[in-house]
């Protein structure tokens, strides 16, 4: 388990500036959420961490040293389960790509099917799974790579609200059981409050960090905690920060 520090990250695509000095910290075993308006660069931030996009400036440090390619396990916004692979082989994909033999990869992925609620579906095709099961399969594919930090990009965004709630509870249990360190992108403020130790709020593109909000709710988290005044206040604070208008650069008149 590692400590992640992102410092002053700047990303540009051509002359489109996407990230403008983003900074973020996650200690081992923490779950840190990133929220921000659509298109502000949240996925781009994860792409940098996963080594897929070269930043124009800034650094990603893991335990104080520059991150290597194998620190982060990435779960993209779409589940991207391959139709030509069975669910088990999809789950084992990362291990196979990482150089493990097919049989060994399967043997390592298979024991996780029970705790992930996928037992019995090893030989099914992804199209036979429900939405929630597809997300769990995609998460299994991410987790089984045994990397230090999980990057989850809106893992429950496509689910109906009932399934989403049960998936959030499930993630809370699994995270506690396995001690994962998680960075999570979400659009859902309640989800961020329910799951996180800390929420990083980004502003519109080019994204900067607007505020970092500590979520001081006890663990393990339970759904009823969301009804407490503390949680309600946190939700209200996050919403307010998100909806702050873009501050215009101070004009001469204002300064005078």
């Amino acid at each position, binding site marked *: 388990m590692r400590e992640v520090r992102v410092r002053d990250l700047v990303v540009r695509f051509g002359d489109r500036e996407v990230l403008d000095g983003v900074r973020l910290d996650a200690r081992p075993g923490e779950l840190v959420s990133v929220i921000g308006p659509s298109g502000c660069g949240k996925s781009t931030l994860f792409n940098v961490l996963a080594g897929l996009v070269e930043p124009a400036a800034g650094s990603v440090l893991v335990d104080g040293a520059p991150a290597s390619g194998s620190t982060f396990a*990435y779960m993209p916004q779409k589940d991207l389960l391959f139709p030509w692979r069975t669910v088990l082989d999809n789950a084992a994909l990362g291990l196979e790509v990482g150089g493990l033999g097919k049989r060994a990869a399967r043997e390592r992925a298979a024991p996780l099917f029970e705790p992930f609620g996928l037992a019995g579906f090893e030989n099914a095709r992804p199209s036979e799974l429900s939405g929630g099961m597809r997300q769990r399969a995609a998460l299994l594919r991410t987790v089984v790579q045994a990397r230090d930090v999980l990057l989850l990009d809106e893992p429950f965004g496509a689910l109906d609200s009932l399934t989403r709630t*049960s998936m959030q509870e499930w993630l809370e249990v699994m995270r506690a059981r396995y001690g994962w360190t998680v960075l999570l992108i979400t659009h859902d403020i309640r989800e961020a409050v329910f799951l996180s130790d800390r929420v990083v709020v980004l502003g519109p593109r080019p994204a900067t960090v607007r505020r970092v909000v500590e979520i001081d709710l006890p663990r393990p988290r339970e759904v009823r905690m969301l009804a407490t005044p503390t949680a309600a206040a946190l939700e209200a604070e996050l919403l307010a920060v998100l909806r702050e208008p873009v501050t215009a650069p101070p004009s001469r008149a204002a300064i005078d």
Partner: protein
Amino acid sequence: MSVRLSTPAVRRPAAPEPPRDAATPSRGRLRRVLPALVVVAVLVAAWQWAVTAFAVRPQVLPSPLRVVEQGWLFRDALWTNTVPTLQVTAVGFAVSLAVAWVLAVVVDFSPWLRQALLPLLVASQTIPIIAIAPLLIIWFGFGLLPKVVVIALVTFFPVAIGLIEGFSSVEREATNLVRSMGAGRWREFRYLRLPAAMPSFFTSLRIGITYAVTGAVFAEYVGARAGLGIFMNLQKNSFRTDLVLAAVIITAVISVALFGLTYAVQRLVMPWYAAERRRA
């Protein structure tokens, strides 16, 4: 309320589900080919009727009955000429497939070669085969080679293009996923681009293979020692229109059979595809 593990309510046994139409496979297939059979029957009947009604001379247009009759009488000659055509088709299409695969993979790995080769591939399709086939015989003689070249020329293009487009059909997010798992360009190809290209490959394979038999017959027509093409040419010169048509029927049957074969191979290579399509 306490936190609990939410597992799916429905548990599925690990055994594969039985195919939905397992009970009536032959009847299902029959129903699929029935419309085609009906159309063929109607056309043949109309042909038979027209030839009799207008008393057309068999040198101009023989009746279907006569075609079958004479075809049967000359079955030995037809068979000895079918075998070389099949051989030429098989070798020619195999070469064509090999060329298409090598080109497509090379082009997929090198953007530079893609820029360099794609215009050439397109240009190769503007070669008038009618003009070049006799030259091929002058250059390479009456053996296998000129025919293989003709078949490859007419069939490699759709296959190569189908593969190239199939390889590049993958989403950027999927590429990012396998890259994040540590894949380099080769593993990206093996685990993602190659399997993703299979549906497109089989579509283009079907287009290519239907041209293969025609290409073989054409190449033989221009010059060969044996084969359905040269057989047709000889029979035409002695006004045996019925035997020409008998040979045509054989080429049609071979083409349809090869076309059907691609589906069988597809089911072996991509068992997932049919189920996927059925669900979509």
